[in-house]
């Protein structure tokens, strides 16, 4: 039902998109010439959990497949376009994780300094690596992992103005999808124990509450800045358990202001993100600060080695799903610059106060021109009982993937 509503939402907003097209006073562009590009990928994943499952129904091995088609159509010399990115995952065991999404389906009209898009989009804001505090427009696809890089499409009307003084983005949104969690047979979930969560919204329009966002961003010399504000329903819910053992999932209305800053100096890039967020329940501040230093072409080997260090602070403490409330991140990134574009990233996240440790590593290598093989490990150690992650403590995994791009 939700999916149908979502599609209807996208279609109705897409129709609104024709308006700027009609009212536009544009220089006449010659004959309409359509150009189409179809690309995408198929991927197979094998995931293995070395530690025993904590909860009933879970397995140790999972095969799953992913299909992600991408269709791009442009006309009027690229001044009008439609972008579609689909997504579907089929999981061997977990019915919840078998899911589909419209990552992107939007129409875009480009005028000299103004870009108008209508439809479902993915928006990325921010500069830091271990956490994306400022990035609040899209719902996260946590079924694809907690690394917050995978997002669900967000229906919106998006106007972006590019001027000498920077870029101004204005977004008007309605409808978002609730955060989806693994099912009974899936790993990476807390114990449901037969409890059905009670989903609540602060807005009486529930998922349809109107949301707005505005952002100014600018790159000047070696600096990148961004200031943004979001008003609407938080994509990330708050979980509470009442005295009667009711499990409440609350989507609250928030006002969040975010700052981003980045400065490049030789091999060093400094990065910072700060947010101030208000809801009826509480007002919080959070920040991620750090940097990345790159040793280029180490010992003339052709390999670039990046060292990343970041510190995360967040007032929300233990209620955070990301668990980045007082945590250091140390990571390294290797780019081999070889024919197979081999790369590797690895790191640890360490809680400063309770010593909870998370670690991960990912490696990619191309085979031929259109295949890519990846290996990933992720695990935990010394998890404090107060951390949300404690509920997932046995869900460290290793994964092998093979993808075909077309």
């Amino acid at each position, binding site marked *: 039902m939700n999916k149908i509503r979502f599609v209807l939402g996208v279609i109705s907003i897409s129709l609104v998109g024709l308006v700027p097209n009609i009212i536009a006073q544009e220089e006449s562009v010659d004959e309409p010439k359509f150009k189409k590009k179809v690309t995408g990928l198929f991927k197979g994943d094998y995931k293995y959990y070395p530690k025993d499952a904590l909860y009933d129904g879970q397995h140790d091995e999972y095969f799953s497949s992913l299909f992600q088609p991408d269709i*791009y159509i442009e006309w009027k010399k690229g001044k009008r376009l439609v972008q579609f990115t689909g997504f579907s995952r089929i999981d061997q065991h977990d019915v919840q994780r078998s899911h589909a999404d419209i990552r992107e389906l939007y129409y875009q009209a480009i005028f000299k300094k103004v870009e108008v898009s209508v439809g479902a989009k993915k928006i990325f804001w921010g500069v830091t690596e271990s956490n994306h505090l400022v990035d609040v427009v899209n719902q996260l696809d946590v079924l694809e992992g907690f690394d917050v890089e995978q997002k669900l499409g967000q229906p919106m009307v998006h106007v972006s103005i590019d001027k000498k003084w920077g870029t101004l983005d204005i977004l008007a949104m309605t409808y978002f999808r609730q955060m989806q969690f693994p099912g009974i047979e899936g790993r990476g979930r807390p114990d449901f124990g037969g409890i059905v969560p009670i989903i609540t919204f602060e807005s009486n329009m529930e998922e349809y509450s109107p949301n707005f966002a505005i952002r100014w961003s600018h790159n000047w010399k070696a600096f990148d800045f961004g200031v943004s504000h979001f008003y609407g329903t938080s994509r990330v819910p708050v979980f509470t358990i009442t005295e009667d053992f009711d499990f409440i999932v609350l989507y609250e209305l928030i006002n969040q202001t975010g700052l981003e800053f980045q400065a490049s100096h030789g091999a060093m890039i400094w990065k910072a993100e700060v947010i101030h967020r208000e809801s009826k329940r509480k007002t919080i501040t959070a920040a991620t600060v750090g940097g990345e230093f790159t040793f*280029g*072409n180490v010992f003339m080997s052709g390999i670039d080695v990046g060292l990343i260090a970041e510190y995360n602070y967040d007032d929300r403490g233990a209620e955070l799903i990301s668990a980045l409330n007082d945590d250091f991140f140390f990571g390294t990134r290797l780019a081999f610059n070889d024919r197979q574009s081999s790369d590797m990233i690895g790191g640890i996240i360490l809680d400063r106060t309770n010593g909870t440790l998370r670690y991960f590593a990912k490696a990619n290598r191309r085979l031929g021109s259109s295949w890519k093989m990846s290996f990933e490990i992720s695990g935990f150690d010394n998890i404090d009982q107060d951390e949300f992650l404690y509920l997932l403590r046995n869900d460290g995994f290793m994964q092998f993937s093979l993808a075909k791009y077309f």
Partner: protein
Amino acid sequence: MIKTIIKLALGLSILFSATAFGQDRGLEIAKKAEEVDNGWGSNSNQLKMTLTDRNGRKTTRQMHGYSKEVEGDGDMSMTIFDTPETVKGTASMTYTHKTGDDDQWLFMPAIDRVKRISSSSKSGPFMGSEFAFEDLSSQEVEKYTFKYMSEEKMNGVDCFKVERFPISKTSGYKRNIVWFNKMNYRPEKIEFYDRKNELMKTLTFSEYKQYSSKYWRASVMEMINHRNGKETRLDFTNLKFDIELTEEDFSQNALKRAK
């Protein structure tokens, strides 16, 4: 004794003036080469890169892009990768500057993120080829010191042979030797010497074509790596000048849209 000192002084002064002369002449030629290319305005092209390994096995990469001259500074350029399929749609945008670090951003379509790239890793290979990033970025006069060497025939044409020394400490080279065509100042050949001053690579320019009845561009560039026996050939096609490009075509939004 006094005679020896006089001889020494004389010798030194000749040496010094010769060096100064070499610097001036070398710089003059490099400036002239830049000057004749001034005002190229804008262009777009397609590029096929063919990598050949020691056993003669070939792999190719394709990309296209466009660039715009910035008066009084470097240039702005956009490169979009078409193959291999695994990087299709990835785009990079660079603002080069006469002095100081270049600015560079990369757009990664998989996560819709624009990322600033540190300008440190210039000496590393570009996509597994024999070209380093620094060989492909714009080579402003301000980024080197020069020394005139001699006149020499290269590829059958009369050339000025000029030595140039990268100022940047992160360059992978101690020096390059450039052969400039005496007629039109276009480069015919460049030799790259590593930090230990050993010949590392040779780049040859060929199939020159003239655009807007003024600007010479090589359609083929071949880099031979003497160390590992590998080669990379660049074939430029569809090179067009005087295309309509504004600064908005090099904005963050334009980078995200680049196809």
